[in-house]
């Protein structure tokens, strides 16, 4: 379902050209759990942005469910991000002013749900998802009133709202202590196993990567190893 072929990405920093990716090709099948590892500067974040349709490659092709993302316009890419991909970030990226419930509802609003639908089904769905990640008693708290682990659970709940095919997690445990990090990893791996969600985790932590079925190692913009 994910097919990357000869992806390159070049950034222009003033007059200097930085080649973040120099030709990366791989396939990830539906339901796989994959870790992308590498040193900082290896190109793993760039790869993650391209896989998440947040950015387009300089050359090469990225097929998502057989569709070439290079042919899509901004709005179509936004719809793919909304429907097919759930993002989990290192810094959680919850809206600080909104309640946990509102944060989790947000993808529904961008999916075109109208006001009455949001008030009825949307609320129910968001509550159900928050219950499933163990935040059922924190619905009306603001992110600042939650612990780091709880915030990341809320972020995972938000990623699940539109029932995506794939979760893209960028250093999801990077801001958490090891115990909480392990809990978050259990949650993510559990989602992969129970719901069949494709899981792609970018990390530099070998113990995190070890929990997945497959590890792709990047080095200087190229794939160093790809082991299952």
């Amino acid at each position, binding site marked *: 379902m994910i097919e990357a072929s000869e992806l390159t990405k070049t950034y222009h920093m003033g007059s200097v050209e930085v080649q973040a990716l120099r030709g990366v090709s791989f396939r990830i099948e539906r339901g796989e759990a994959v870790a992308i590892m590498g040193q900082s500067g290896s190109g793993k974040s760039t790869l993650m942005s391209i896989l998440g349709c947040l950015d387009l490659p300089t050359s090469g092709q990225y097929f998502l469910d057989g569709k070439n993302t290079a042919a899509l316009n901004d709005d179509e890419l936004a719809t793919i991000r909304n429907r097919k991909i759930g993002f989990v970030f290192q810094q959680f*990226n919850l809206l600080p002013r909104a309640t946990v419930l509102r944060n989790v509802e947000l993808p529904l609003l961008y999916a075109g749900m109208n*006001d009455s639908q949001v008030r009825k089904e949307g609320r129910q769905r968001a509550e159900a998802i928050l219950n499933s990640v163990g935040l059922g008693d924190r619905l009306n708290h603001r992110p600042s009133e939650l612990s780091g682990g709880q915030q990341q659970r809320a972020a995972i709940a938000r990623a699940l709202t539109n029932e995506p095919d794939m979760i893209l997690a960028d250093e999801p445990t990077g801001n958490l202590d090891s115990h909480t990090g392990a809990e978050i990893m259990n949650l993510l791996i559990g989602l992969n196993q129970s719901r069949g969600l494709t899981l792609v985790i970018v990390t530099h932590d070998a113990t995190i990567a070890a929990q997945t079925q497959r590890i792709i190692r990047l080095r200087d913009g190229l794939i160093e190893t790809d082991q299952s």
Partner: protein
Amino acid sequence: MSLYQNLLEALESLNANKLRSMLTVLGIVIGVSAVIAMLSIGRGARASITSQIESIGTNLIYVTPGSFRQGGIASAAGTAGTLTIEDANALASQAGVVAVAPEVDGRVQISYLGQNSNTRVVGVTPSYQDVRNLTLADGAFISDSNQVAHSSVVVLGSAVATNLFSSTAGVVGQSVRLGGQPFRVIGVLDSKGGSGFFNQDDQIFVPLSTAQTRLVGNERFRGANVINQISVEAASSNDVPQVVNNVTELMRSRHRTVPGADDFTVTSQQDALGAATQVTDTLTIFLGGIAGISLAVGGIGIMNIMLTSVTERTREIGLRKAIGARRRDILLQFLVESMVLSLLGGLIGVAFGWLIAHLIGSVQLGGSTIKPVVGLDSVLLATLFSMAVGLFFGIYPATRAARLLPVEALRYE
């Protein structure tokens, strides 16, 4: 995302930065209230001037002499002694003319015991009272027999009476001196409430015949007594244009002049009304324009704060894009926010401007007050204009937000 949801988000975000939002709104409040106050004061001035002119009568037509020409050099209009009592008599028989009042005027020293003042003396016939809507506080106006007998009688304007006698009561029957000659006061007029450079209460009236023989001199033109002005009363204000035409035609045939070389001028009270309202309208536009500038400055304040807000919330915008917000979602979100600011400012500004207008209305300005008129149209104008300001100054920041690339916005520190 629906408009309602955008509104919720906007209110939440403005609420998060209360002081900043309030200061931004204040800019619009000042602009809108200035517009409302200025427009209402302009309207009030117009209404008060209009009502003063209308109190004299809207169906009045004046015939005044043209300018005096000698050797191709024209002197000021009204200086030629070309109007005569015969002209006035001829005009009286025209269709649509109810009454005609010829007059001569000049300035005279009026004295009573130790008091004296210089005032305008007008020589009039009895019809002048009806034509000019004069009402008496005491006594009687000049009568036909006064006119025939060249009587030494005078009717005082209320300001003159107050100046000389400190009161309008008990003045009738007293003897005053006009340029040294004794005159008996037979009446005192009610106040017309005029103010400014021409005070209708600061004049006195004597019989036309008396004025010509004893006060302002007696020129003759084509064998008849010269007068300074003829007031013509039309049957109704609708008849005024027709009567103006008739009067002009008759005067031309009597004076044997052609259009463009007339030795007289015909003006109506409606012309004066038109000129006065034109002046106040210009004033209103001028004041409103200055107030509009402050509204534009308020709009720049909105733009400034929205740009700051976009920069501060770059990561938030990136996150929204990552979870599926399209460009137009982001655009709408920031536009709604700037329009909420400006509309809020507009509504408070209307209330505040109304208050200012009424405060100014209660202040005495040169003896008269201006009653401010806050029209629904100026309220609508100010509100719509402030929304347009919000839209206009919100577009650039909102477009900037919508154009942010998701990956760069997410990495923004």
